[in-house]
């Protein structure tokens, strides 16, 4: 399909026309809307720049499989690999090996150790995300003075990203002494478990005021759980998700805010940066990078910054279609 880049086409990357560069885009998990919409943006950039784009990743989000894919691409001799590492430690050795073979390796969406990549296309740091999650939830619950308990529904117990966010969430929660962190429940990337967990949390603790559902499957599951428990408005939930997936809940009032950045732009920017690195029109050390329709983007250290975190609410959500 369109947004999937070159995947599924019988033209292996090694058959790419001479002179045309090949860029691989690796999501943490293939087949989830967040990354699919990133890939749409990436495809747009690939067309503009006339590069071959390969979009592939593990359908189960396994970092080991992702590392195997990086190793394979490096052996095929592609020009650039853009990695969103689900577990930086697992991917770093493969990425380093690829760099030694002369492939340009960058990270996007999530970072890896700096010696494993040239630059990081950064949409937001874990700290920014953690802070935004807590602050938004507090705002939705009615402000600083609300007393009570907050629970977290996460992806899996071992999800590296989520665990890092949880550290920052805890850090930020210290700023709100009236709030107490209750259970942290894994949903094992299963919507139904998130749904059930939300309902159980509500019943188990009458003091519960808010839930942070910090994975893209947990968020709609938790929202549905609150809605069916009849607690919409009394228990708030927020998290990270694409506007398309949460639109219905925002419209019916179960969810007040959804946090994310512009995913299409993230994919677009990533391919722009990778292609320019290969062509030499951008060196990792430049202070800015020209990124097509996005204009000039700031580079801070070795981080290319996308821009601000977006908060989608009833009022603005219809302006975003991804």
């Amino acid at each position, binding site marked *: 399909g369109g947004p999937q880049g070159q995947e599924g086409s019988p033209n292996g990357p090694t058959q790419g026309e001479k002179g045309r560069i090949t860029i691989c885009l690796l999501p943490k998990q293939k087949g989830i809307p967040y990354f699919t919409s990133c890939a749409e943006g990436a495809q747009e950039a690939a067309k503009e720049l006339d590069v071959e784009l390969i979009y592939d990743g593990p359908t189960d989000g396994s970092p080991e499989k992702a590392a195997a894919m990086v190793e394979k691409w490096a052996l095929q001799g592609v020009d650039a690999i853009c990695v969103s590492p689900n577990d930086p430690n697992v991917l770093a050795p493969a990425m380093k090996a690829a760099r030694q073979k002369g492939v340009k390796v960058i990270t996007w969406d999530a970072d890896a150790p700096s010696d494993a990549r040239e630059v990081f296309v950064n949409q937001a740091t874990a700290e920014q995300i953690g802070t935004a999650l807590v602050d938004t939830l507090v705002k939705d619950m009615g402000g600083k003075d609300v007393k009570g308990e907050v629970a977290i529904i996460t992806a899996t117990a071992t999800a590296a990203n989520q665990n890092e966010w949880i550290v920052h969430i805890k850090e930020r929660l210290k700023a709100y002494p009236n709030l107490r*962190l*209750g259970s942290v*429940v894994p949903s094992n990337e299963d*919507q139904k478990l998130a749904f059930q967990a939300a309902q159980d949390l509500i019943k188990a603790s009458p003091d519960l005021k808010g839930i942070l559902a910090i994975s893209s*499957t947990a968020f709609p599951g938790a929202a549905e759980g609150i809605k069916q428990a009849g607690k919409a408005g009394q228990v708030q939930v927020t998290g990270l998700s694409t506007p398309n997936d949460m639109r219905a809940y925002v419209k019916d009032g179960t969810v007040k805010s959804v946090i994310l950045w512009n995913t299409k732009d993230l994919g677009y920017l990533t391919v722009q940066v990778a292609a320019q690195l290969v062509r030499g029109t951008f060196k990792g050390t430049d202070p800015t990078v020209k990124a097509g329709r996005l204009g000039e983007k700031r580079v801070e250290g070795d981080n290319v910054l996308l821009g601000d975190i977006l908060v989608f609410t009833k009022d603005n959500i219809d302006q975003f279609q991804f």
Partner: protein
Amino acid sequence: MRLRGVPGPALVLALLCALATAINPAFLSPRNLTDLMLAAAPTLIAACGLMLVVASGEIDISIGSLLGLCAAVAGTLSSPDRLGLPPSLAVAATLALGLGVGLLNGVLVSLVRVPSIIVTLGMLSVLKGANELLMGGKWITRLPDGLRAWGTGSVLGVPVPIAACAAVVALTWLLANRTAWGRRVFAVGSNADSARLAGIPVGRTKLAAFGLAGLLVALATLVSVPRLSLVDSGVGVGFELLVVTCVVVGGVSIRGGTGTILGVVLGVLLLSSVRTVLIFLQLGESSLYWERAIQGALILAAVMGDAAGRRREARA
């Protein structure tokens, strides 16, 4: 022997519930019990089908991916964002898909004589791939009310999933214990050679068991997925392990020939209430990391308790 798979799970389940209630009396509230039943219903429906397959001496581990594919098909057909066909059509197509895949498994097992664990292991992977292809990297976020009624509606005041589950349990009991076909399923699993000598069509009996199991997985999809408004491509991942675990904890012999509905019901209730109990115990953040260890320990306790009890019984 008659009570195989009953005492162990029953004891562990009772202890868990007592513990949860002692710490948090809300556990026994009607609302929570209803929710528990709602959560257990799809697992139990699928487990009834699997019980018959296992009793016939075979196994079906493709049910996780089948659930996912059924969800994708139901959603794709009925969602206004996709094809937007009438929900009744989607329901019929889903049931037909479940039945069809079940029969395909059955044909490969009983006519082509490939061991069922291999057929269904392969099918697990093939159906998952089909699911990903059908979903195309995007989720289905709106389901029509007609479909959602299967998950959220109620008949005579009883939520549809619970009613459907009760009906399936009752029918499976009847089928297994009071019909010729049901007894033949157990006979085939107990001794296939004798079954042939007794003139029982072994292949056809197994085929029907697989077909029924597939159909029940489709039904489980219909009463679970529409409870949420969103279908993602991860639906059903790991479901096969859960259901197999429930069935074997419930005392259905993996070698075939034995098994009771009561045991399966207890196995499902045990496995599906563990999470809820853990949440009610409010162990705080640390429960996150220990949840799976506790689950595993409980499974082992139930199974070993049962085995120990059986040995004592055999000695007496």
